[in-house]
């Protein structure tokens, strides 16, 4: 795979506050990459540096190998879909979408055909003459995407574009964006604080917090092999316990030894263990980890069951109902145990 973007040692601060701490990252061609993190983690700033709206204090950004730091936004082959769409209110749908091509002085017929194509792509055929103010949030979103994509950028930046939409529409758009990215063959950089969104759409997820990249990986990697406590708790729910890595493939937590698939730690290193709620099964009998059901909540697909094991609460997702007060024991496979550095 060819590297489209290389971010090298990018740092940025606003009024003494360091918002990006020496970021290193590359983005492959045709990749759908997501910057995921809580608000204030620096993900939007990083996106704005790619777009050219912010200048990094140090470090460089390479585009197809060339440093682009000094190239102004309007000369970069990069387009942005803004969080609140930023559609031009004095133009109709057609004029908004045609904006980029008109600036490039393309012939009128060519622009007309391109806009039609775009409207078809975003499923807004026949909306050419509509006033922006008469469109719903979802429709405005689609116009914003069409307005950016019509320029055939090599890189499309999307700044929390789905945040303002309701749940159903958001899920539809997640699917459509992913389809669009495949069909157009454009590299997408997507910024979100919604972990589900990130896992659903991305080829690669970059988890960020406090101006640093904590983990880069496929959605499966990020979910199943979180590198640390922050990633584990930010991505989905998890049970995190302190433990000791006795030796390769043997971990001790809650006073018990468990076989596991992790290795490469120092012998007797203090570590943390992650157990995902859906990986734990509840069984009658004794597995060593025994407890009492203290709470059960119906969540639709599954029940969320809280089990008290020697004073520590475990969250378990199960499709089988349990009764509060019942004695249960926890069981899981060795693959389900995930060990992280402390």
């Amino acid at each position, binding site marked *: 795979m060819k590297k489209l973007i290389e971010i090298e040692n990018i740092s940025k601060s606003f009024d003494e506050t360091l918002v990006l701490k020496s970021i290193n990252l590359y983005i492959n061609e045709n990749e759908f990459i997501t910057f995921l993190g809580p608000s204030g983690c620096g993900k939007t700033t990083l996106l704005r540096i790619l*777009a*050219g*709206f912010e200048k990094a204090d140090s470090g460089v950004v390479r585009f197809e190998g060339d440093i682009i730091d000094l190239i*102004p*936004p*309007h*000369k970069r082959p*990069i*387009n*942005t879909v*803004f*969080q*609140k769409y*930023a*559609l*031009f*209110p*004095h133009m109709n749908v057609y004029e908004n979408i045609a*904006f*980029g091509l008109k*600036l*490039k002085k393309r012939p009128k017929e060519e622009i007309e055909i391109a806009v039609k194509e775009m409207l078809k792509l975003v499923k807004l055929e026949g909306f050419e003459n509509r006033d922006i103010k008469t469109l719903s949030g979802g429709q405005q979103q689609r116009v914003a995407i069409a*307005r*950016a994509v019509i*320029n055939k950028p090599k890189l499309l930046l999307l700044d929390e574009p789905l945040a303002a939409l309701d749940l159903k529409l958001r899920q539809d758009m997640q699917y459509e964006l992913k389809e669009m990215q495949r069909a157009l063959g454009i590299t997408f950089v997507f910024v979100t604080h919604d972990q589900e969104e990130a896992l659903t759409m991305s080829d690669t997820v970059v988890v960020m917090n406090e101006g640093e990249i904590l983990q880069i990986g496929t959605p499966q990697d990020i979910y199943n092999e979180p590198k640390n406590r922050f990633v584990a708790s930010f991505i989905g729910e998890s049970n995190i316990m302190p433990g000791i890595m006795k030796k390769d493939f043997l971990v001790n937590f809650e006073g018990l030894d468990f076989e596991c698939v992790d290795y490469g730690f120092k012998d007797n290193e203090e570590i943390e263990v992650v157990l995902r709620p859906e990986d734990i099964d509840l069984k009658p009998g004794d597995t060593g980890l025994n407890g009492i059901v203290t709470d059960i909540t119906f969540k639709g697909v599954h029940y969320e069951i809280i089990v008290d094991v020697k004073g520590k609460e475990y969250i378990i997702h199960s499709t089988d109902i349990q009764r509060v007060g019942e004695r249960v024991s926890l069981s899981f496979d060795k693959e389900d145990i995930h060990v992280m550095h402390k």
Partner: protein
Amino acid sequence: MKSLRVMIWPYVIWLGIIILIPSLFIILATVSSFHIFNDYTFRFTSEFIRFLSDPIFLNAFKNSIKYAGLTTMICLLVGYPVAYFFANMKSKNKTLYIALLIVPIWSNMIVRIIAWENVFKPVSIINLFNLSFDLIGYDVAIIIAMVSMYLPFMIFPIYAVLDKMDHKLIEAAHDLGAGDFQTFYKVTFPLSLGGIVSGIIMTLLPAMTAFALPERIGGGKVILLGNLIEKQIFRGSFNIAATVSLVVMIVMLGLFALIVHFDKEGETLL
């Protein structure tokens, strides 16, 4: 809220007494003649139609358009960059600087007019700087004074629009390939049109009816519509004075209709 409705009555009555009734009198005085200084007679007349083509009226009308139009144009050319500069200023003291622009309006206009009048006389305080003007009665003096009076009224509506404009729109334009000039020409400027129209009208209206300023700085030689009304009233020609007033009123209403058309939310009106 219903209980508060009664509180608008003082204003409504006030409006009726000082605006509505006098306006009706002006209309009546236009289409009739009563010579209160002579014979107390009252009769309807169409004299005013003839007066509308009288050189005295045409000259005053032309002057009003000329001075007000020129003033408005200069105010726009000078005021837009100022409004743009302040709207894009990142300083924490922005509000203070804006306030400094307002301060001059707080002092009485007549006082400011007399100040300019003195500056344009050969003997004035600026002699201290080895400068001396003798410009009373000249266009340039009138225009300079008028611009200084009305410039803030041009700046504020434009500033209000530019300041409220979503900065993301500018970024979006850059992002889509527009350079600084194209962004201004295609996005910033069209989106500030409402403020420009308001500013033009806020400047044009008072400038057209200016009366003390051309009187003092024009040295009595320059007659605008306002001066014509004053002169006709002192001559006792209420019919003619009312006719001129009505013309001014109609022009004002027309311009006001324009403001409402361009700025439906009324956000640029101060």
